[in-house]
């Protein structure tokens, strides 16, 4: 109960935003495409928040976050499809399963690789991302349903504004409370100085693993929502560039800043999708020429993220 009481300001704000969006969608003011993009933004914010816990707060460089997003997506879609639980009632369970599977894999892989630091950890997670991609590409050898490199088709659409919005808001509040608890404090200590953290009794290996597993859990949940939004999964949706996408949002929002991640998620996805709408068809090809140029310009203009002018 105290959870809701302490967060009542945020919950109120969330309800207002929800009501506004619901109204916008119901009145048919915006196209279905835009609806989908808005829902997608919440999913991306959730996954990026997971990366923020891992990297922004705890300082563990990951270049393979999309792998866990993919694991969540494939797990929940597979479960829904093969068990016949393709209804909104079982949706919470399949979402949770997606998150838990991502967390489990993160746990197993985290035990060996989280001993690595900085770029070495980055390259190991990048390698893990490639491995998962190989796994998805060959997944049809395990089960025809998964589709391998042809992609996973025919997933029921269960993700709507309500599920994406409320799952994300709830998990963001959970994350905020974790961050402001002793666990979040330890994560921040570890990011600054692992040796000093150990000297005051923090079990650094365990806390790093916890941050990693929790962050990947959020990615898994986000992936589950994604699978049931677009109803089609392809291994290439979860490759290195998707990991970079999440990283960009974390950096633009500012390391260790949840509110920043929310804004940056809107700005970044909004910008990429906005270009698709704004650019005339004949120069749509140029979209991916502009996006990286803008990205480079952003990094030069605000190397510490959009909200921070200089490291404070």
């Amino acid at each position: 109960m105290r959870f809701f009481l302490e967060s009542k300001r945020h919950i109120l704000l969330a309800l207002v935003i929800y009501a506004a969006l619901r109204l916008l969608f119901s009145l048919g003011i915006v196209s279905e495409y835009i609806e989908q993009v808005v829902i997608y933004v919440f999913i991306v914010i959730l996954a990026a928040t997971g990366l923020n816990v891992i990297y922004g707060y705890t300082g563990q460089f990951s270049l393979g976050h999309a792998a866990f997003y993919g694991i969540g997506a494939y797990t929940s879609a597979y479960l829904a499809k093969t068990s016949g639980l393709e209804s909104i009632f079982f949706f919470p369970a399949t979402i949770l399963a997606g998150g838990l599977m991502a967390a489990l894999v993160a746990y197993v892989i985290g035990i060996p690789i989280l001993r690595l630091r900085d770029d070495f950890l980055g390259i190991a997670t990048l390698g893990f991302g490639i491995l998962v991609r190989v796994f998805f590409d060959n997944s049809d050898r395990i089960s025809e349903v998964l589709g391998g490199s042809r992609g996973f088709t025919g997933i029921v659409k269960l993700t709507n504004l309500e599920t994406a919005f409320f799952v994300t808001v709830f998990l963001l509040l959970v994350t905020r409370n974790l961050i402001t608890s002793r666990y979040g404090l330890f994560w921040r200590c570890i990011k600054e100085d692992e040796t000093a953290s150990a000297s005051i009794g923090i079990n650094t290996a365990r806390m790093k693993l916890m941050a990693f597993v929790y962050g990947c859990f959020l990615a898994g949940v986000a992936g589950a929502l994604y699978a049931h939004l677009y109803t089609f999964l392809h291994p290439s949706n979860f490759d290195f560039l998707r990991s970079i996408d999440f990283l960009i949002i974390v950096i633009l929002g500012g390391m260790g800043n949840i509110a920043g991640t929310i804004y940056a998620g809107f700005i970044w996805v909004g910008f990429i999708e906005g270009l698709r709408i704004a650019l005339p068809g004949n120069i749509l090809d140029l979209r991916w020429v502009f996006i990286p140029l803008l990205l480079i310009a952003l990094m030069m203009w605000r190397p510490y993220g959009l909200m921070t002018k200089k490291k404070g």
Partner: protein
Amino acid sequence: MEQASYILSQVINGLQLGAVYALIALGYTMVYGILRLINFAHGDIFMLGAFIAYFLLSRFGMPIYLVFLATMAVTALAGYLMEKIAYKPLRNAPKISLLITAVGVSLFLEYFCSLKAVFTPDYIAFPRPFEVETYNFSLGGLEFSFTNIQVLIFAITFSALVLLYLLIYRTKQGKAMRAVSYDRETAALMGINIDNTVSLTFMVGAALAGMGGILYAMAYPQINVFMGIMPGIKSFIAAVLGGIGIIHGAVIGGLIVGTSEVIVSAFLSSTYRDGVIFIILLIVLLVKPSGIFGKRIDKV
């Protein structure tokens, strides 16, 4: 015996691929050594090399040795400009924004080159400057063969390596590079021109990658603007395997990655070949976190 011959021929094929990875990994490892930057755009320089050679060969019918020289000059210039325009302004920014910028440069190069007005988004056939010839050998019942392209790849990689060693260990510029990668601040205090040294490192790395691009295109004559992504990532992994910042480490790492990739394709399935690299990387890093030839001391 037949099995042994087959394995041997696959190993030779693997070393051919590995030699190309080694050329790319050298640039990665040098740039990382000097700026601590994973220059993700390095793989795209490799792609540029293949495309430039394509144009020189198909449009101008240039002789092959000139193609090499001209291509390497152009990719070196590209490396120089890349560093000056995109990376230098961020030299004192957080490392992560530099890394994101590198990804930005990489995407830009790929999509810019994929425009119809520049190169093309499609696969195109690379014109081989000469016919492939195969030389067969038999040694105590063990049959194996080389192609002239393989010989060329090994010869060029090896000479490039020798020249690189001479540059790094026998010239003033090379000494400056080593000093900057050891400790940039101190090197600056000693009067070493950091900017020039960084530029030179990028140019040498890019020239090697451009050369790798031509060799790769000769061996696997299908080129595409996205062809640099996977070889780029694998070469960086190779550099980490060997011990980042260490020249011979990059070469050995490249050969290991290339060989295991080909062996896995031959004996398991080509769809698994990218996965095995992660397994090798993981094992090496867990046994020796600084890579095969790397050393690092932690001090409390």
